[in-house]
């Protein structure tokens, strides 16, 4: 009898798709998240021939704790650990601050005021996120460097206007945070904008009727309402900034990420400890987010769509003036880099703007595009021109394949997880699956990449430089985009809809394809679009997993490091155009777009 009841219970349990999804992905994601962590922890204790641990232990194989002792207590501790750690925290905090301030202000202006040119500004504002982050760092160098301050050749402002920016502006924490802040400001814009857009204006209006001063309304009503969005932005940006390798690398800031790379050759085990430290930060942030989730219950009004949303009038001139100011700002953050990239592909030498000083257009060249032979002179380094460069085009198609596959897999898994978690929202296992799916996002890309390298580059399995490895890493890292987007949207769907379909005997597939997905199409598509876009220009995650010409971002980085800026600029243009084409296509076909989906519409 008991056996029959148990059997029935099991049968009933398995008849609910959400249970199977949670069970399956709970197990798979536990492995895909925990296994790399275990691998990297093991690496911190392993003796690596030819490195410091071999020197200190006198052994060539085995396990030891000497890496921990040396990293934390040797005379190099300050150089290898404490200063990079401090710089990393400063960089991450500053980046969060800049992105929230810039993105949040812009979100407010777009959603809550009658500022003009919104449509244009909204599209252009997300461009810095489309571009690989370090390309903005290269633009920064081209603009502000000078012989006088940075000991290099003069950048544009020094060369043309003799303006010399101080060292702190050119290199270090400030420019790194500025570049990353601009890069991640679209996160803040979309997340905070999403709330502003749906926020019930009645609360603010009530405060106004009660004659509350504007600053007080902002502090006591508006800001608390957007607190969850600010916390979400911090959640997304802090981890990303902490794991960024290329920006601090180009702008000369020593962080845990840059130190990880530089220590990897002779202090391999100690470098893995740095990766662990970055991961611990990820876990702490996730824990903080969990706490903030509890507090979100106090702001349930945010979820209701108000029919009384009113726009703040900023004056007849003001609405144009503010719009123009933002057109000016976004010109430099979004358009100017693209113009510079385009221009760079016609300069005779990297950064050689002599045609500007001389006014002679003959100083421009098309050699970077049309050279059709293997020559090493004139800066070509044996590379055929961009149009004929097999490395670039091979990497381009490889990247496209990778991005499409990652987006499809991560998008589908994330959507299913979002669906299942929403269905079982009070279930502990569902919460666990939700968290374990989100955790990889908070782990710095460089650390996740390192973990996958260690895990899949060993005696039994060697997937280095294969699409399989890149897809695995990409999927694990990008599932959070889709699961977050999907969960937010699924929570808005009442169970009654699906229950009605169940009564009609509609299968689960039918319910999903005919009811659930069509209703939340926009959010679900952004769950596919974001992994696609991020994957196209991802560097930190893939840096350690493949060779230089394998995908476009590593090829771009390779050309950038070599100083072949014409090639890297051209790749940038290719990436931007590709993303815009795909975004437009998806927008035309489905009505969804990047600036409407990140936080779930």
């Amino acid at each position, binding site marked *: 009898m008991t056996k029959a009841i148990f059997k029935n219970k099991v049968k009933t349990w398995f008849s609910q798709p959400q249970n199977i999804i949670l069970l399956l992905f709970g197990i798979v994601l536990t492995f895909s998240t925990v296994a790399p962590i275990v691998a990297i922890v093991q690496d911190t204790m392993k003796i690596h021939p030819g490195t410091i641990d071999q020197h200190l232990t006198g052994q060539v194989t085995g396990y030891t704790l000497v890496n921990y002792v040396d990293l934390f207590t040797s005379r190099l501790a300050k150089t290898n650990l404490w200063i990079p750690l401090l710089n990393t925290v400063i960089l991450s905090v500053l980046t969060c601050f800049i992105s929230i301030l810039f993105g949040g202000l812009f979100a407010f202006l777009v959603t809550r005021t009658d500022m003009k040119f919104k449509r244009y500004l909204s599209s252009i504002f997300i461009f810095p996120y489309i571009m690989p982050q370090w390309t903005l760092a290269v633009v920064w160098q081209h603009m502000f460097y000078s012989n006088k301050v940075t000991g*290099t050749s003069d950048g544009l402002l020094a060369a043309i206007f003799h303006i010399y920016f101080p060292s702190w502006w050119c290199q270090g924490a400030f420019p790194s945070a500025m570049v990353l802040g601009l890069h991640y400001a679209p996160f803040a814009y979309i997340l905070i904008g999403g709330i502003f857009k749906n926020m019930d204006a009645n609360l603010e209006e009530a405060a106004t009727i009660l004659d509350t001063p504007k600053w007080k309304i902002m502090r006591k009503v508006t800001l608390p309402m957007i607190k969850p969005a600010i916390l979400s932005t911090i959640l997304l940006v802090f981890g990303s900034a902490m794991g960024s390798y290329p920006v601090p690398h180009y702008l000369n800031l020593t962080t845990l990420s840059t130190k990880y790379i530089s220590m990897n050759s*002779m202090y391999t085990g100690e470098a893995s400890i740095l990766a662990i430290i970055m991961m611990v930060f990820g876990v702490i942030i996730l824990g903080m987010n969990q706490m903030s989730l509890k507090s979100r219950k106090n702001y349930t009004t945010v979820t209701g769509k108000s029919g009384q949303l009113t726009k703040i009038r900023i004056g007849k001139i003001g609405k144009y003036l503010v719009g123009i100011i933002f057109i000016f700002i976004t010109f430099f953050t979004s358009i100017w880099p693209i113009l510079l990239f385009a221009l760079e592909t016609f300069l005779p030498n*990297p950064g050689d703007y002599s045609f500007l000083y001389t006014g002679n257009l003959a100083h421009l060249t098309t050699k970077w595009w049309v050279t059709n032979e293997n020559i090493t002179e004139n800066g070509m380094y044996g590379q055929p021109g961009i149009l004929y460069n097999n490395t670039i085009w091979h990497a381009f198609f490889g990247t496209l394949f990778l991005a499409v596959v990652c987006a499809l897999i991560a998008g589908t898994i994330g959507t299913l997880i979002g669906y299942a978690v929403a269905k079982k929202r009070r279930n502990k296992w569902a919460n666990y699956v939700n968290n374990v799916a989100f955790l990889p996002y908070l782990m710095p890309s460089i650390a996740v990449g390192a973990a996958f390298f260690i895990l899949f580059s060993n005696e039994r399995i060697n997937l280095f430089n294969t699409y399989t490895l890149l897809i695995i890493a990409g999927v694990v890292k990008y599932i959070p985009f889709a699961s977050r987007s999907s969960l937010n949207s699924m929570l808005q769907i009442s169970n009654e809809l699906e229950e009605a379909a169940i009564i009609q005997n509609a299968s689960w597939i039918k319910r999903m394809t005919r009811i659930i997905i069509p209703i939340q199409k926009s959010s679900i598509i952004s769950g596919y679009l974001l992994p696609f876009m991020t994957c196209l220009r991802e560097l930190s995650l893939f840096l350690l997993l493949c060779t230089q010409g394998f995908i476009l971002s590593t090829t771009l980085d390779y050309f950038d490091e070599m100083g072949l800026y014409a090639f890297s600029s051209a790749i940038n243009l290719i990436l931007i155009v590709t993303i815009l084409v795909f975004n437009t296509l998806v927008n035309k076909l489905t009505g969804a777009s990047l600036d409407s989906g990140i936080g779930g519409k």
Partner: protein
Amino acid sequence: MKRKVLSLIMAASMMMASFVGCGGASTGSGDSAGGTEASADAPAAELTGIDKIIAEAETMTLDELAKKAIEESNGKTFYGVGNSSRGKTALPLFIEYLQGIDSSYSMEFEWQQPKNNKIFEQLTSDSLKSEGTFAMTLIQDGNQIQSKMVDTDILKTYVPKEWAEANGTTPDAYEGFLPLQTLNKVFMYNNTGSAEFTNCWDFVAEGSHPLFMGVDSEIVGKNFLMMLTRDDYAKMLKDAYDKLDASQKSYFDPTIKAMESEASDLGLGADAKYSLAWIKLWINSYNEQTDDGPICNTLVDKSAKDQSGLLVYSKLRSVEESATVSVNNINVAAYQDGYTGIGGYGYCHYLFLTKNSPLPWTACAFIAFMTTTEQGFDAWGKDMGGYSSNPEVAKAIEETYHHSEGGGDEFPAKNDRGYDWWTTDGQLVLEDPAYCSEVSFTVGSWIDVQDHYSTGDEE
């Protein structure tokens, strides 16, 4: 016995053959860097697996090896991995050469160039398999090769017979890694201002911030600094210091004095205090850049007044003349009359078979092709600043490309004076893997704790 005597004679002659360059002869200051000792000491019959193949291959000519390679790899895929992308250019020429022997021959290939030191981890991972993916490698950084690849038996040195003969030795007698080429990084400075660099100590003088890739970005740069502590190079630095005038000396003297005890603690020679002082000042002052390409782009610009740098010589070939950019905006320090001291440093690209090479005969033939024929070295030889380890190939390359007069009267900085000049008059500091490996965690760790310069430090 006769064989051993002959080996000794040949080894001595080899040591004199300067073309072999870095990693060539053991310096006596550490364990031998050799990878062929097993094949030298044991008859081929007693060897097994890859060692046996290498021992046999070392007795064969390139043509004989080519036949073996055709038998082994026809219709297969050859995987190579290297720090230089030119392996990819050399492979089609190699296939063409094999097709000249057997027109039906075909081979696919893939050449990988990992980033950020990953080549060592990739080779280590691959070595764990019973049959590896990579047939061979072209790799730099003698220090890590010694400690991570050779000491662990992951890589195997094969010395082509004809290459050894060209260097006046035999494969059996030769000890060391097999270098494909030596590359030089040399001191250069922008000449549009008034600064003068007439002594290698000028690059570490007060206010000087040479552009350099940084010791963490490229380990061969750290190897260079470690090499400076070897007795012969330490003496070069001392000699250069002695030629400074009193006022210049007074700036360096406190640092040199402070380094006396450090040199003693590190177990270095009498002149090493000069080396340590120079290294300390260099690390305290160099302006780190991501690559030699950007360094070159900076130095040739007329706005980079008085800036200097230590960068790959061959980068000069990539400069296109314009209104503000010119090769004539820079001087190669060692080419200037009256210049004293080291002119830069040299490091090698070494060739190895992997211990579990899936195509060992083909790998040996490819290595022989690159090191014994002009065609095989052409992918590298067409550029200045890279010198074949085979004197015959080097001569043929010079006759074809005339690097010594590549810049003519118009661009004298591009007239490459060649390996012989650089390693004598040019005082190039050559990398010795065994020495670097030996001092890696003494001098190397000391280097790690030195303070690095960052712009704004003087504000």
